[in-house]
C-alpha cells in the first residue's frame, strides 16, 4: 500500500469512527448541542463518502466501518459527550495532517480544508485554542488557551468487531463502557473500520 493510500485509509477509518461517535454524542445531548452534533455527523459522513470515492478512484478498496466502536470512556452525561466530540475532532485533525504529507496537491488541499473544519468544530465544543492543531504536544507542554478551560487529551475511538451492529444516525443509543480501551489515542482512531 502506498503512502497516499495508507493515509487515505487512516483518514477514512477516523471518519468512520467519527460518524459512529457522533451518533453517541447525539444521543447524550439536546437542544443546541444536539443540533451541533447532528451537523457534525452530517459533515463527517460527507467527508467519509469523499474519502471512499478518492480511494476507489485510485484503485483501492475502501474499508467498511466496524459494526461498533469501543469508546474511550462511558458516555453517560452531556459533559462526557462533549469530551468525546473534542477527542474525535482532535484525532481527525491528526489524521488529516498525516494525509497532508502526501505529494498530491489535491490531497493536500483536501487535508488542509478538513483539518480546519475539525479544529474549528473542536473549538465549538470546547473553546481551547492549540497553536498547532493535530500536532503531537511536547511532553509537559500546554496549549495557550483562549479561555481558562483545560485542553482535553485522551484516548480515541476504536472499533469493536465483537459488538452488535448499531445505527449510524444520532440516536439515544448508548455505547457500552469500555475500561480496557487503549490509551494510545492516535492508534485507536487510526485503527477504526478494520
Amino acid at each position: 500500500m502506498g503512502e497516499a493510500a495508507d493515509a487515505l485509509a487512516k483518514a477514512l477509518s477516523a471518519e468512520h469512527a467519527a460518524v459512529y461517535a457522533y451518533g453517541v454524542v447525539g444521543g447524550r445531548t439536546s437542544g443546541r448541542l444536539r443540533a451541533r452534533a447532528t451537523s457534525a455527523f452530517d459533515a463527517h459522513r460527507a467527508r467519509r463518502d469523499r474519502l471512499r470515492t478518492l480511494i476507489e478512484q485510485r484503485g483501492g478498496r475502501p474499508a467498511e466501518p466496524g459494526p461498533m466502536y469501543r469508546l474511550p470512556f462511558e458516555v453517560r452525561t452531556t459533559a462526557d459527550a462533549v469530551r468525546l466530540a473534542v477527542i474525535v475532532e482532535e484525532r481527525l485533525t491528526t489524521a488529516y495532517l498525516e494525509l497532508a504529507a502526501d505529494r498530491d496537491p489535491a490531497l493536500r488541499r483536501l487535508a488542509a480544508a478538513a483539518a480546519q473544519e475539525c479544529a474549528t468544530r473542536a473549538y465549538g465544543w470546547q473553546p481551547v485554542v492549540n497553536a498547532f492543531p493535530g500536532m503531537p504536544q511536547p511532553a509537559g507542554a500546554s496549549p495557550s488557551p483562549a479561555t481558562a478551560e483545560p485542553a482535553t487529551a485522551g484516548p480515541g475511538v476504536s472499533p469493536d468487531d465483537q459488538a452488535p451492529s448499531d445505527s449510524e444516525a444520532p440516536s439515544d443509543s448508548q455505547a457500552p463502557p469500555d475500561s480496557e480501551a487503549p490509551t494510545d489515542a492516535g492508534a485507536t482512531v487510526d485503527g477504526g473500520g478494520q
Partner: protein
Amino acid sequence: MTRRLVLRTAGGAIGGTVGGVAAAGLVAGCSSRTAEPRRPKPPDPQTVLLRSLIAGKEQMIELYQRAALSQARLAGALEPFRQRHVAHLAALRALLPKEAAATPSVSGLSPTVSASPSAEGVSLSGLRDAERKASAARPAQTAGASPALAQLLVSVGACEAVHVVALGRVRG
C-alpha cells in the same frame, strides 16, 4: 559536437570502467580557459516559499501588536493569539536551511514599528479578516511545500481558522 562534449562523452564511458578520476583528468586537461560567467544559483523554491510565509507571519504579529496598542482594553485578550503566531513563526523559521536562516528576513520584525505614532490602529474585525485570509490561503500554499512544511501549514491554517471563531468571542 564540440570537443568538450566528445571528451565528456568519452569520460563518461571511461568513468564506468576506469573511474571518475581518470575521466575528470581528461576533461580538465582539455578544457579551455574561456571564462563562463558565473550565473547566480537560482533560489531554492522551498526557501522562497518559507521566506514568503515568514514575512506573512511577521505581518500578522505586527497587526496584533498594533491592535493591542490601539485598543488597550483588548491587549490582554489578544496576547494569547499573538503568542500562537509567534510560535508559528518560530516553527517556520526552524525549517529554513541554515545558510538561509543566517541572512536577514525580508521583512524584519521590529517591536518599535508598531509603536510608531503613524501606525494605524487595527480593529477586531480587521484581525478576523487577516486570520480568515491567512487560513484560506493555506490549502493552496501546501502545493509546493515539502511534506514537513505542508503538514505545518495545515496545522497553522487550522489554528488560524479557529482564531477567526475565537476572535468573535473576544470582549473588551
